[in-house]
């Protein structure tokens, strides 16, 4: 028991750091993921993750494996794509998904182009696929800061955000908060993805954002419940993923995301709220 669960963390500092980094991401990113899911914008997260690439690439090319440069580059690129696609949607007939797709594809191509102009792209590959095992103090502080900012902003923005998700028309009719809410929320998405890619890489960062949220949908009815369930799933996935990586020599990032994927699969089948088994039971059981 001790050897299985605790000894790796007791013996190795990098395991503790990895776990701490993952927990920070779990706390910061998964509530954002819950809102992304509730707004039916799950794939937007994926698009934004790609959009971050050229910014991170430029940051890397300018000052190497610098946490700050890549974070700022990623933030700028992500926000630029979010704002531009929002702007295009508001002034033309193109829907947001289409304009977002257009911009992130441009962004992605630009990223690959920038990377290719330099002979060496392996360092960048490592950055893009992340190294949760190599979190240094600066990276940990960044992850924890992002998680704190994210949680605080969500707490402040909770009500408008719920409204913006559930009944945007109503929010627009009662206040001018709609646009502010929308873009603050997109900022949070970008911020968490940028934080996540230091640990898990851009693509896997979306995984820890969306998969626990999707799983939580099958466990809770209320938003609060979903957020709590999502954070729990994300933390458990991080823990189990890291342990699997430790005991079975699997790459850590994918291991964590796959565990989250397993949680999603189990929730899909066995979740009490609309899971396949619950659906199969007589309707009476749904009338709480």
């Amino acid at each position, binding site marked *: 028991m001790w050897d299985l669960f605790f000894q*790796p963390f007791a*013996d*190795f*500092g*990098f*395991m503790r*750091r*990895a776990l701490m980094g993952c927990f920070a991401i779990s706390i910061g990113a998964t509530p954002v993921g819950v809102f992304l899911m509730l707004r039916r914008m799950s794939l937007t997260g994926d698009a934004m993750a790609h959009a971050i690439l050229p910014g991170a690439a430029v940051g890397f090319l300018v000052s190497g*494996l610098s946490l700050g440069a890549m974070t700022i580059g990623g933030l700028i690129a992500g926000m630029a794509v979010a704002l531009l696609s929002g702007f295009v949607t508001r002034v033309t007939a193109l829907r947001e998904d289409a304009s977002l797709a257009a911009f992130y594809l441009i962004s992605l191509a630009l990223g690959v182009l920038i990377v*290719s102009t330099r*002979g*060496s*792209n*392996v*360092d960048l*590959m*490592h*950055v893009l*696929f992340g*190294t949760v*095992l*190599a*979190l*240094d103090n600066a*990276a940990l502080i960044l992850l924890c800061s992002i998680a704190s900012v994210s949680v605080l902003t969500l707490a402040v923005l909770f009500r408008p955000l719920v409204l913006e998700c559930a009944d945007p028309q109503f929010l627009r009719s009662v206040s001018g908060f709609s646009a502010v809410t929308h873009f603050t929320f997109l900022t949070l998405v970008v911020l968490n993805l940028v934080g996540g890619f230091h640990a898990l890489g851009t693509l896997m960062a979306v995984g820890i954002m969306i998969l626990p949220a999707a799983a939580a949908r099958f466990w809770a009815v209320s938003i609060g419940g979903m957020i709590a369930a999502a954070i729990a799933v994300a933390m458990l996935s991080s823990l189990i993923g*890291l342990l699997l*990586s*430790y*005991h*079975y*020599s*699997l*790459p*850590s*990032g*994918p*291991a964590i995301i796959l565990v989250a994927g397993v949680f999603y699969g189990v929730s899909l089948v066995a979740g009490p709220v609309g899971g396949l088994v619950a659906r199969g039971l007589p309707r009476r059981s749904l009338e709480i």
Partner: protein
Amino acid sequence: MFSRRLLLGSATALAALSLSAPNLTQADEPTRVVATFSILGDMVQRIGGEHIALTTLVGPNGDAHVYQPSPADARAVSEAQVLIENGLEFEGWLGRLVEASDFSGVRVMATDGVEPIAFDDGHDDHGEDKHDDHDDHGHDDHAEDKHDDHGHEGGHGHGAHAFEWAGLFELEAGTYTWSFAKVGGDYADPAMKMVILSADDIEAVEETAEDLLEADASETKTHGDALAAKEAAYALTFDAAKEVTTFTVTIADAGKFAFFTEHMPFEFEANEHFFKDASGADVEPIAQEPDVDHGDHGHGGHHGHDHGAFDPHAWQSLENAVIYVDNVTEALAKADPANAASFYENRAAYVAEIEALQADVVAMVAEIPENKRTVVTSHDAFGYFADSYGLTFAAPQGLSTESEASAKDVAELIKQIRKESISAVFVETITDNRLLEQIANETGAAIGGTLYSDALSDADGPAPTYLDMMRHNATTISTALGS
């Protein structure tokens, strides 16, 4: 050793001169030469001097493992008269590039004649538990005096066995398919001997197999032929016109069978497993010799298919560099006999520098205390360096720069560093060094500096030429370990 090759090379050059082959260059026009990566490019330039127009595909600080050819590269290759590659499957992309660019010149493998180190031989940094299995099989002298002194596990040199690989399979009666595929555009060898014997373990029939393989008598088999377990050696001839040559293995009665081959079967693996049953399912050996841990060893399973069975970083030994230089000189002299004399002059000067540096490096290593000769780098590319100079290299990641390290790999390495009190960890040009910094922090080992493995630095860096690189690496290591 060097002089023999030199004589050979000179003789060839003279022969070429007197023949004056029709595809020779005009004397005043430089020969168009393409070298695949920066280290090779530097050597070629040293030999060719002003008489060649050199294009290097993967430049300084570039990584040849993940290189993507550009159209300009393809054009350079198509116009080249000589294409010089490292070989040993270092440039996996080269076959496609050569095909795509209609290259019609001479392709030269710089490692031709190098004694290659098999992967997981000599520098498997984790699996100390595997030492004992091998030691009683006898090494050649080279392996004997180098490896055992420094705590390596078995290096299976070519001299010890008539076979390079043996695998024990438990098979049902029926037919199986053994396939040999071209890797990087060519078979690893055009032909190979194989022996199939019914046996409970490899050692029981090892001698029989060796006798059969060493005997002159053999049955020649070609694509599609059937093989069976019997006391005879098959001479398998691979069909150059096909991408894959297959043989049917017919098993009359279920049981255990030992297969002995002259080459590693993995050298002939392109995309598919080499041995399959009638339904197409992979058949894995229950035991093999050497125990290469093919595929699913604790490195995230990337050894088998990303590379061939051998470590391609042969230039990391200065002795091998002389072989490189000889191959290059010979090729250039053939392509441009008019300037052959100049190439051989350049060669002589260059080899003198290499040998001087070799002596320096040996002296530097000699000063390092015996118990401090283990080095940790992020890129497992120093197998030849380790062998040549009696150092041990350990790495958190496997040989490929493309795969991610697992927590287990990192934990094992940290344990190893703690146990063997390794004092220095090296950051290297390629690969994420944040991981190393973490390991260094955790173990208290110093970060020793940057080692160059696969590419030169640019002109301002510490390793703009091959010799600079080797000197820089040796100095960096001896400084860190000696301190």
